[in-house]
Structures are given as structure tokens and as C-alpha cells.
């Protein structure tokens, strides 16, 4: 029998892997993909809670999250393209003009 604990555990594992990826990778696009992975993990826990609480709010919230993720992907990738045009790299160690 699959309970909510299984889904929440899977969600926590995926979120943790996403956090690790954000921290150890140096490629901006891969970091961005890890952020998408974290968003997906949170969406999974939303739907799992919604299912086990007989509610619809979780699914609606996931709908809005996906919309925000789409907007974020468009703007973020545009920023990466703009940075690549100026610096010829997407390695975040070389992109430090805003560092004190």
C-alpha cells in the first residue's frame, strides 16, 4: 500500500538532489535545470497532499506553479543568453560583476 509518506519521501529526495545540484554545479543552465527539479519535487508533494486530503487546492496551486515556472524559464534563459553574449561563458565562477 502506497501512503502519502512514500510520495513525500520521494519529493524530499528529489528536492535534496536539486539543492545539491544547485550547490555543486558551475554551469548556469544546469543550475537552472536543478531549480526546475526542485519545483517539480514541491509540485509532487502538493498533489500528494491534495489527494490524501480530498482537496483540489493542491492541484490548482500546482497549475499556478507551472505557469510561474514557465515565465521564470523564459526570463531566466533570456538572462543567460544576454550574459553569454557579453561574457562568452555560462560558467558562474566567471560571472562575478555583482560580487562585492
Amino acid at each position: 500500500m502506497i501512503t502519502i509518506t512514500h510520495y513525500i519521501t520521494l519529493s524530499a529526495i528529489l528536492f535534496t538532489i536539486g539543492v545539491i545540484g544547485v550547490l555543486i554545479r558551475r554551469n548556469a543552465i544546469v543550475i537552472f535545470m536543478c531549480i526546475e527539479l526542485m519545483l517539480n519535487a514541491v509540485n509532487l508533494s502538493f498533489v500528494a497532499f491534495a489527494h490524501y486530503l480530498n482537496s483540489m487546492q493542491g492541484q490548482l496551486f500546482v497549475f499556478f506553479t507551472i505557469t510561474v515556472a514557465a515565465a521564470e524559464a523564459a526570463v531566466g534563459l533570456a538572462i543567460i543568453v544576454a550574459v553569454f553574449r557579453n561574457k562568452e561563458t555560462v560558467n558562474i565562477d566567471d560571472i562575478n560583476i555583482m560580487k562585492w
Partner: protein
Amino acid sequence: MEAYLFYIVATISVAAAVYLVFEKNPVFSALYLIQIMVCIAVLYILLEAQFIAAVQIIVYAGAIMVLFLFVIMLLNLNVQEDVKDALPFQKIPTIFLGITLFVVISIVLKSKLFQGRHGEYTTEYVNKVGNTKIIGNLLFTDYLLPFEITSILLFVAAIGAVMLAKRKI
């Protein structure tokens, strides 16, 4: 049956997530992420969220990931050059901190903090009326304002993407 499917899909998604993080080539990372998204769509179907599963496939795996792959190929990043890692000592502590984060999340979730109130949308009711119909009804009644704000958000994002990526306005 459901348990087998859950374990198979969960194993595939976790393995793909590990490959996503440790893969050198960004194109393969993107393909692993598409695999994770399809696996999560299968889990949504197991959780009887058919509309969200379809949106996940169409919007995430279809649109967003194609955008990612498009940018990777546009910037010609699929040839990974050997760049020197400025902080090589960061990897091991990061993995330990990640495991700590997982343990903390598990403790929080195991404690009975999340005793939510049960709603009215039971599985029988949802299956009788239809998942998509209920979501549509809620979107255009109770959640009309967030829905309209979403359209503004997408509009702003489209304009912002064009403004940022254009060389000279």
C-alpha cells in the same frame, strides 16, 4: 499493481535526478530532466490528478524543456570545455549538507505537524464529475483573480524575455 508502478517510477526518477546533477554534458542533463518530468506525470496519474499530469507533459516536458534544449544548442554548450573548478573543496560538504537537509525535511514531515482539514472532493466525486471540469470550475469562480494575474505575469515574462535577449532595442 499501484505499489509496483510507484516503486519503479520512483527509482527511475531518483536515478535520473542523480545523473542530471553529475552529468557533464548539459544536453544529457536536459534529457534526464525530461525523463524525471514524465515519471512525475505518471505519479500524478497515480494520484488521480489527470489534468495536472497532462499539463506537466505538455508545458514542462514539451515547452519548457524544449526552450532549455534550444538555448543549450543556440549557445553551443553541448561541447563541455574543461573549466577549472574554483571551489573544488565545496563538493563533499555540499553532499553532507544535502543529506542533512533530507534528514531535517524527513523529521519535519514525520512529526504530526501537517494534519490538514479534509476537503469535499473525494475520489468518487472527482471521478463522477471529472477532474478537468472541477479544476476549470474552480479556476473561473473561486480562483478567477489569480488566473487573471497569471495572464499578466505571462505577458510581462514574454516582454521581459524579448527585452533581455534582444541586442539593441
